[in-house]
């Protein structure tokens, strides 16, 4: 297709789909390479941003989605009853945090950090599609390795796991009243 038309074809596709669409599927539908598709996506994204539009084009990993801008949420909520996604329980959130920062990682590792069994929360996160199995660890029992998904990014509104803030630095085992050893 004509590359100048691509951004608006993408807009139409994402509008109709409602849900997030993978870049490879989008490229195939347009008959473009993934590279060309991403260029068109970026052009469309710029267009949306240069005019503070009511909707924004969000990228979640390898998936794209049209969503309203957060500043218009009150108006949307006032008129419509949009489908509210559920927020996660504390246990699920903690499990997800360990997986997100340590990925790929095993259930055993999560249990080690949290100090409790995590079968239920891992199952529930898998079921919600926020984490996925990505292989097995070459260790005793070959435990399953888990990593976060693009749906995870979507749930937290970030394009990449690197957008998560770094783990907070805590004054741990090494007491801070002792000066650090310097040569």
């Amino acid at each position, binding site marked *: 297709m004509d590359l100048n038309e691509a951004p608006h074809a993408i807009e139409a596709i994402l509008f109709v789909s409602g*849900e997030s669409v993978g870049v490879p599927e989008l490229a195939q539908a347009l008959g473009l390479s993934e590279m060309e598709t991403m260029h068109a996506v970026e052009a469309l994204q710029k267009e949306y941003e240069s005019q503070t539009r009511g909707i924004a084009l969000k990228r979640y990993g390898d998936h794209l989605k049209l969503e309203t801008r957060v500043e218009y*949420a009150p108006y949307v909520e006032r008129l419509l009853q949009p489908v509210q996604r559920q927020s996660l329980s504390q246990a699920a959130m903690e499990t997800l*945090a360990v997986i997100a920062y340590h990925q790929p990682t095993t259930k055993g590792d999560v249990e080690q950090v949290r100090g409790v069994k995590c079968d239920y929360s891992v199952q529930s996160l898998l079921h919600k599609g926020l984490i996925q199995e990505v292989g097995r660890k070459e260790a005793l029992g070959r435990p399953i390795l888990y990593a976060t998904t693009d749906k995870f990014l979507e749930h937290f509104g970030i394009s990449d796991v690197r957008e998560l803030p770094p*783990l907070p630095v*805590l004054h741990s*085992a090494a007491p801070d009243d002792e000066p650090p050893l310097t040569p």
Partner: protein
Amino acid sequence: MAIHIRLKQFDGPLDLLLHLIGKAKIDIKDIFVSEITEQFIAVVSGAPDFDLDAASEFVAMAALLVEIKSRALLPKPPKTDEEEDPEQVLIARLTAYKQFKESAQTMSSFEQTALQLYAKLPEEIPLPPPTLEIDGLTLDALWLALRRIAERRPKEEREVDYRLRNIRRDCYTVEGCMEVIQSRLSIGEATFDELFCDVPGREEVVTLFIALLELLKLGKAYVTQGAAFDRIILHPGRRQGFGLE
């Protein structure tokens, strides 16, 4: 100090320990110079919802805390390199857990913002029938397929078992019987019985019968019968004026 805490509020013993540390407003590393161990044991043993299954992790932690406390009362044995100090290990675990707990809170705030991003429901779109594209359709492939068949055949025929056996010639063929019936019908109607010889063999009966069915299907003959078990009469040609045939 009266503590009214339900174990169910906590995601495990580390969570409870952090809660107690937070309440006592002390640093994690000071946990063993404080009353935390006693408070922890008091909470676990006094828990109204004490259920060994659910609380086993809490009990294990209580045991560990007591062990660390009692070690502190004993003279320290000389340290070996491999031996990990359980106190330091626990402090490191608590510190790591606290990091993730705080990250989980940050993630919750991300989540709260993201929950206010609304999308629309997918449209319902009537789709055309799926298109199927077939790969690898080339004349070469077609030609090769034929070659494969050709090369396979002689080999398979060599595998035929050539033992001697008696083969009786087929005296009756369907085509032959069809001709017989048709030539009989060309001179007029006939009864079913008269098609057969006086002492018909099984092969003759079966072949003639199939031939007759074939003729009926081709519309070159039709049959009538006065009543059940009456004589079956064969007529040449297609049945006329018979509604739903």
